[in-house]
């Protein structure tokens, strides 16, 4: 007899060892789920809020920042256009995330379910990449104009030799890169831990297809 058939015989013979009553089951319906979809949902909300705040708070709290913006974007239409574009992008991401969450069905087959979750995670990833890129560009532009329009700094830079200016710019670029790298590592850690099992199982399923 096949090993598994031996197991099958025993498996079906074994009765119910644990039996819950309806009274035990009712409270379970109202407990909170701790599934990765739920966690992913909270993370994406946190991402949206975090990056929106990062981008808008200085606008309201720091007059210096506003002043700098006025310097950079002397043309009001450009500023308004950029604002509209950036909010449309946020709206687009919210829409994509919503659609993607709606397409996660626990009743799909295992592979399809994993793919829907991975797709959602990808949208969050793109949102983060977009924000990191935007933050990086804003930082570079901000630094450039900050130096240009700040008489103290630009004065100092004018007197600096080529070598010194090179060091200053180099330092700023390295600093920005380290900042971006740290954020990236942070994300790898969060999603790596959260989706470790899913990724492993998805790979295993994909392997069956080769």
């Amino acid at each position, binding site marked *: 007899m096949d090993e598994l058939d031996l*197991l099958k015989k025993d498996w079906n013979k074994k009765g119910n060892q644990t039996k819950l009553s309806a009274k035990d089951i009712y409270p379970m319906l109202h407990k909170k*789920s701790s599934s990765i979809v739920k966690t992913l949902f909270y993370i994406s909300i946190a991402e949206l809020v975090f990056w929106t705040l990062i981008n808008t708070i200085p606008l309201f709290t720091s007059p210096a920042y506003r002043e700098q913006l006025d310097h950079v974007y002397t043309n009001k239409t450009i500023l308004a256009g950029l604002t509209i574009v950036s909010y449309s992008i946020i709206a687009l991401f919210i829409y994509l995330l919503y659609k993607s969450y709606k397409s996660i069905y626990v009743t799909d087959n295992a592979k399809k379910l994993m793919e829907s979750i991975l797709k959602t995670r990808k949208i969050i990833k793109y949102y983060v990449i977009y924000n990191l890129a935007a933050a990086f560009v804003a930082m570079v532009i901000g630094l450039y104009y900050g130096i240009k329009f700040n008489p103290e700094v630009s004065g100092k830079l004018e007197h600096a030799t080529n070598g010194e200016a090179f060091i200053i710019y180099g330092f700023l670029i390295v600093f920005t890169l380290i900042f971006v790298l740290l954020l990236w590592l942070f994300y790898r850690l969060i999603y790596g831990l959260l989706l470790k099992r899913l990724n492993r199982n998805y790979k295993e399923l994909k392997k069956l297809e080769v």
Partner: protein
Amino acid sequence: MNKELEHSFVELLEKHQNIVHKVCRLYTNNYDAHNDLFQEITIQLWKAYPKFRGDAKFSTWMYRVGLNTAITLYRKSKRTINTQDFEGVAFKIKTEDYDDTEEQQLKVLYKAVHQLNDIDKALVFLYLEDKDYREISETLGISEVNARVKMNRIKKKLKTILNP
């Protein structure tokens, strides 16, 4: 209306709870983890229940949601991870003197199945539950041929464990 729905759901789950217990038995290795996973599967079943239409059998539907929760959705909480148990099992399989009695064989087999990866376990589970390859392939989202090939490989693997 909601109460009615709740009532019908609990009644069905109570009747078919064995399926969920079996999934939990396969994917966890201690009491706390078993209950934790049972709870999560129940929540997922309940959330999906309004969309459950009578055209699928409730039990068939439970297999899918139960396995999906165990393989994909379930996030092990810290207190339920018990790696030591697992290593202990591996050690025992290697050192235990092989005994030809059926009971001993079964013991080793259960341990071996516990050591399979999540996907292999799902295949074995559906096989033990007497599901045909069409249903196995539909539940996991792989082709019928691949399900068959994989199952044969698992059988071979178990054979070598039993007859080293």
